[in-house]
């Protein structure tokens, strides 16, 4: 982090004649002021605080002030609430409720067995089916999940990574059966395996074959599903795991660089696949630092794509992102306070120019959200979008000495981190070396110590504590009926399918995995034959092996 520049005379005079006499009477309330990420903050920012003002305008390189010249004046951001729990029937009902409440996009949360490529009857799935998201084992579940929802009438985001290609194949076959053409589909596949190794740890295969699945999706979509966002390069989970804002930005953009490099190395045309890369950031508590982070992200990515990769098309330079408010900032104590935290975080995401937004529900430190809590989260965005004037002017903080300076500082700090990873040979190498994992664990512990010492106040937790026993809201409870229902359906699917067709499709998948051939066509055939997620992943586990992390504290 850099110190403030040598003060120019006007500022110097103010400090000497105005500030210092005032401080002699009453000192400031603490000796240093820092952001949530530990970045020192001066008391006053002036023209002299900013080395050179970014002269760019919205809609032009490097897009610091936004991707679109009209900002949100043409269309506000997309309200996209992440949801999924229990059986596909239960989640399908929640989607219909979210759409009727005015939601404009769907976002699927899968349960842990699905995320880990395990079927509901796998011994490791015991107790986890439908708990953290919806259970999807085969095409039959995917058909139920989207029953009554035309796939060309919604855009769908799917948070799935290690088995992303398998789940995406299921979505494509559901579209096929609805008579919806693939080129008319829009949505996003998270498909970001690198941040799984770094932060969220839902990995299956080792990094290199995992990267091949990612580039297979890039290649397939470029030819067949051109409007689909093939990846959502995600800082969200990195931040939730404890990183600072600058680390979130740096690791995410460096992951983005890794994907682009692997795509180019796989022989793909950067101008074709780069515009389908999207991003996903956390909207955390530190209001100004977060706005600066989003502005810096756009500027850095535009430069990376133009200067590092030589992309010529503006669409290849543009960083489009989804934001979600910080789950980690929510408290189990006095849960209604979470509504306020979420609203302020959402405000930062919007002022940072997000394309879509998920606002967390107030009860998420306790359980998955209830319907009432999920609706309030949507209403929070609608109040911001329609009652506050927030969408009227583009990049309202552009030109703020404070925000411009923070934007520059966070960019410099993130650049230094990405250069460290370059020197290691790339992100796959850095992950194998444990570098980002270590840095994040250290930052998480440093933060927790600050909370412990009450250098950071968490309202309701280490200050303004109240006894709220008995006042916690009702929460959603997933009972064991979900697992039973999913086991029954799985048995029916396995009994009802054409066994020969299914076996042949899985053999073809194995052959594709063994060769350099794109795995997507064989995955589609396996899905059509009702092969399960677990069966498809088992085939690939046998070919590629499984990744195991070395545990470190």
């Amino acid at each position, binding site marked *: 982090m850099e110190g403030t520049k040598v003060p120019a005379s006007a500022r110097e005079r103010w400090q000497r004649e105005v500030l210092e006499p005032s401080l002699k009477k009453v000192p400031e309330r603490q000796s240093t002021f820092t952001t949530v990420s530990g970045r020192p903050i001066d008391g006053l920012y002036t023209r002299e605080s900013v080395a050179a003002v970014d002269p760019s305008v919205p809609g032009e390189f490097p897009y610091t002030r936004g991707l679109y010249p009209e900002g949100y004046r043409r269309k506000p951001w997309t309200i996209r609430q992440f949801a999924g729990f229990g059986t596909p029937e239960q989640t399908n009902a929640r989607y219909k409720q979210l759409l009727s409440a005015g939601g404009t996009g769907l976002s699927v949360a899968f349960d*842990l*067995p699905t*995320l*880990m490529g*395990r079927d509901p009857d796998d011994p*490791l*799935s*015991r*107790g*986890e089916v439908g*708990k*953290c998201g919806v259970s999807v084992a085969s095409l039959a579940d995917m058909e139920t999940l989207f029953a009554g929802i035309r796939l060309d009438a919604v855009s769908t985001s799917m948070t799935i990574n290690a088995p992303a290609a398998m789940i995406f194949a299921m979505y494509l076959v559901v579209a096929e059966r609805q008579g919806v053409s693939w080129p008319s589909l829009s949505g996003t596949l998270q498909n970001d395996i690198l941040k*799984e190794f770094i932060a*969220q*740890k*839902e*990995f299956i295969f080792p990094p290199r074959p995992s990267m091949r699945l990612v580039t297979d999706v890039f290649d397939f979509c470029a030819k067949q599903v051109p409007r689909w966002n093939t990846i959502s390069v995600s800082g969200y989970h990195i931040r*939730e*795991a*404890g990183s600072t804002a600058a680390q979130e930005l740096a690791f995410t953009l460096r992951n983005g660089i890794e994907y682009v490099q692997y795509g180019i190395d796989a022989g793909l045309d950067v101008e074709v696949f780069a515009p389908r890369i999207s991003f996903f950031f956390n909207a955390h508590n530190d209001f100004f630092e977060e706005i600066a982070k989003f502005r810096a992200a756009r500027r850095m990515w535009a430069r990376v794509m133009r200067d590092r990769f030589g992309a010529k098309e503006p669409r290849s330079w543009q960083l489009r992102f989804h934001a979600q408010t910080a789950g*980690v900032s*929510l*408290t*189990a*104590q006095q849960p209604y306070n979470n509504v306020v935290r979420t609203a302020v975080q959402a405000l930062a995401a919007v002022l940072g120019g997000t394309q879509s937004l998920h606002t967390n529900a107030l009860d998420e*430190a*306790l*359980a998955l959200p209830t319907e009432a809590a999920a609706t309030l989260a949507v209403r929070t965005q609608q109040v911001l979008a329609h009652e506050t004037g927030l969408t009227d002017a583009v990049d309202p903080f552009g030109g703020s000495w404070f925000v411009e300076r923070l934007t520059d500082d966070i960019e410099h700090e993130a650049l230094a981190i990405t250069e460290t990873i370059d020197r290691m040979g790339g992100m796959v190498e850095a992950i194998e070396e444990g570098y980002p994992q270590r840095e994040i*664990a250290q930052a*998480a*512990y440093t933060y*927790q110590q600050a909370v*412990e010492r009450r250098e950071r106040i*968490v309202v*309701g*937790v*280490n200050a303004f504590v109240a006894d709220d026993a008995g006042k*916690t809201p009702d*929460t959603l*409870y*997933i009972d064991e009926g979900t697992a039973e229902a999913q086991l029954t359906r799985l048995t029916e699917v396995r009994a009802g399918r054409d066994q020969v067709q299914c076996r042949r499709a899985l053999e073809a998948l194995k052959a594709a995995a063994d060769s350099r051939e794109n795995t997507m066509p064989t995955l589609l055939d396996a899905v059509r034959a009702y092969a399960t997620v677990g069966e498809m992943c088992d085939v690939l586990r046998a070919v590629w092996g499984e990744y195991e*992390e*070395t*545990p*470190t*504290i």
Partner: protein
Amino acid sequence: MPIRVVIAKPGLDGHDRGAKVIARALRDAGMEVIYTGLRQTPEQIVAAALQEDAQVIGLSILSGAHMHICPRLMELLDQKGLRDEVLVVVGGIIPGVDVPKLNEMGIKGVFLPGTPMQAIVDFISANVKPTVTT
């Protein structure tokens, strides 16, 4: 003799921030901490506790699978005759209705989000069983 603690993450969930933070906090408080890593079965956790002569097992569970994992772990401790020798504590997202059930199983320390690290250190120090000699 420092208190020996096995910190484990059972189940399929990979969110290890809490496990790692508490492992460091216990280590900084002078305890000897063994972190098992991700996706450990109750069998593996009990085996690790035996092998490491652990007096404490700390589980981090955020996925809602605690009512499957905890009874199995306590059953295994019973079978090994360790139930009265090893203190078991759990941290994570645990619905309030499940806390008394965990207590009844013999898991007295259930720590929800927002618990100060010092409170966990103090609980372990106050409730740890005398060192077993094997």
